[in-house]
């Protein structure tokens, strides 16, 4: 099977998914976005480009990632079969590399010598730095000062790979500010620089292009479902959503099916300490329509239009907006978006680790939580696919800190460590 990049019905010619998306950027960037769009449209149909991307995705990244039947998790949930789409198997540990390699190839093809990227937890930064090293491109990564402190190892990793990591102190010093700074750099150096945006956000054509590059996830699921289950379409697909690139990657190949064929598509938003507390990153559940980073989307902003800093246990979901295609799916009912809290994600993180020996990224744990809950409500002949978007090595230290905090609280209430580390609701019978 050779690689092809699917065509999707949206966005329209103006870069809109319904009313969402667009290009709300300084005029300086408009010609560069036009140039990018033209170059991309040619590249995606060019056999040479596709051949090289296919080669790298197979032999460098290790695709296809497997669709793994999680038997013990299935047994625990007590309902539908649970499959995990194992994006955690990819080189560099997450789905991000799918997009980075493709954009870096496009950068080289367009004759750009330097690439820019923003990063939150460092996953997209590391994947961008990796792609840049592989293709011999200069790489600058913008990262919030606060995130650099929390993810010191990823900062070192990027520097080892030859990237320059620039600390961002403006605003809240996190992902949204790193993105602002990357866009400012791009505005200033637009003639010879390529911006590798890491999610399905930003001005057109980024949401469409990143979706296309990530759609290999869903395309593989179709083929693997057919082989393993005798049908292409599962009953439900669950994926975590920050900006939403892993979710779009697995949703899009199913989303435009006729409604009677379409599986339930469920995006799990980071509800932080609870949507009602205001300390969350759930843009659909707790935001309202606005513009950030060039795109009209559901957005956490106050009634004066100022962006409200998001909160999530997961740096990768800690983004105040959600990609425009997701907004369109949400409004049209093509997909559902549900909130999952920090505590629920932490529970699922431990559950998957204990039952399957898979340490998920804390981002992906948000999807695992809801996927398990949903499977429990479905019948054994039904199938739920959870996108395991990344592995959790990067989160182990933070989870250790959080569990020690819980244990501290537990001690003061004279509870045992065991009941604290394995949350009661998700406590599997087999471990009890």
């Amino acid at each position, binding site marked *: 099977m050779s690689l092809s990049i699917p065509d999707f019905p949206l966005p329209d010619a103006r870069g809109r998914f319904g009313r969402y998306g667009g290009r709300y950027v300084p005029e300086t960037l408009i010609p560069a976005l036009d140039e990018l769009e033209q170059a991309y449209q040619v590249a995606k149909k060019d056999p040479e480009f596709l051949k090289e991307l296919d080669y790298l995705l197979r032999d460098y990244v290790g695709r296809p990632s497997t669709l793994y039947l999680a038997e013990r998790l299935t047994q625990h949930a007590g309902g539908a079969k649970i499959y995990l789409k194992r994006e955690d198997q990819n080189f560099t540990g997450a789905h991000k590399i799918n997009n980075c390699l493709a954009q870096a190839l496009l950068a080289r093809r367009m004759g750009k010598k330097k690439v820019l990227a923003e990063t939150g937890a460092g996953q997209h930064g590391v994947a961008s730095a990796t792609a840049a090293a592989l293709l011999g491109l200069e790489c600058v990564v913008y990262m919030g000062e606060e995130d650099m402190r929390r993810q010191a190892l990823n900062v070192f990793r990027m520097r080892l790979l030859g990237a320059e990591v620039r600390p961002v102190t403006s605003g809240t010093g996190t992902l949204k500010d790193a993105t602002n700074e990357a866009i400012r750099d791009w505005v*200033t150096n637009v003639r010879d620089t390529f911006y590798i945006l890491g999610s399905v956000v930003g001005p057109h054509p980024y949401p469409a292009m990143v979706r296309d590059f990530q759609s290999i996830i869903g395309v593989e699921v179709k083929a693997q479902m057919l082989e393993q289950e005798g049908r292409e379409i599962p009953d439900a697909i669950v994926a975590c959503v920050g900006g939403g690139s892993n979710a779009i990657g697995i949703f899009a190949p199913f989303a435009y099916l006729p409604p009677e064929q379409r599986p339930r598509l469920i995006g799990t938003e980071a509800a932080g300490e609870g949507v009602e507390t205001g300390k969350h990153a759930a843009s659909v559940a707790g935001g309202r329509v606005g513009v950030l980073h060039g795109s009209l989307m559901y957005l956490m902003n106050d009634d004066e239009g100022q*962006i409200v800093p998001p909160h999530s246990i997961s740096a990768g979901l800690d983004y105040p907006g959600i990609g425009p295609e997701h907004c369109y799916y949400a409004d049209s009912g093509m997909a559902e978006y549900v909130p999952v809290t920090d505590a629920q994600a932490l529970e699922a993180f431990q559950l998957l680790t204990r039952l399957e020996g898979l340490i998920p990224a804390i981002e992906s744990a948000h999807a695992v939580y809801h996927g398990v809950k949903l499977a429990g409500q479905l019948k054994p002949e039904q199938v739920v696919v959870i996108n395991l978007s990344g592995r959790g090595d990067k989160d182990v230290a933070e989870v250790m800190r959080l569990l020690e905090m819980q244990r501290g609280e537990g001690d003061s209430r004279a509870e045992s460590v065991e009941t604290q580390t394995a949350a009661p609701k998700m406590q599997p019978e087999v471990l009890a």
Partner: protein
Amino acid sequence: MTATTNRGVERLHAAFARAKAEGRAAFIPFMTAGYPSYAKFPEVAAELLSRADIMEVGIPYSDPLGDGPTIQRASEQALAGGTSTRVTIELVKQLRQTHDTPIVIMTYVNPIYAVGPEQFMQLAADAGVDGLILPDLPPDQDIEIAALAAKYGLAVTFLIAPTSTPERVKLVAEACTGFLYAVSVIGITGTREGSALGEVPRMLELARQYARVPVVVGFGVKDAQTAAQVAQVADGVVVGSAFINAVRDGQDAGALADGIRAGCKK
């Protein structure tokens, strides 16, 4: 107020005409609303207003992606002091009681959406705002905004850049009703070393083929000398970060404004 008037457009064009009659490019200083504090802003703004042909007031915004560090920091400080979107409009309303100089508001588009486009225009018009500068809204992204501005008698200004193709310059220039804003450099706001002229002459030549309104130049103008370069080719000169830096450093913004205004002489 349902305006069938062109109040803002007429007042802005009259200001350009007056400056031209005096042999000057219009002097257009910028200040972030609520900077350096809510209490001190009116005083700083008055210093500039009394010397300006047109004054530009920025709504502090949490994520100003077209602005350099100077305006970013000023916005953060103003927001921390409680000046957001509606307070900015209130501050303009106060300035209107003592000054008749045309005032335009510079804002990213999200605050307009958050207030509601029609309500925003109504509030701004009632406060005596004459026009809007929209740095992250290419005119083809939302045609309703310009229509609503017109309904309430507000002029609109969009931007062109050295990267703009002739097609884009045409589209943007034709959408402007107040004046057209040409960004002198490829980049974000802020003072720079060297000439402020850059690719301006070529860009203005293109702009004048399509623009039916005055053309101003901004970004990187910081003193009388850089203003003088720009004044030779432009109808107006916008100066922002330099005034914020002056206020920050406790320098005399009025004296700087006098110098730059003198530099605007053709």
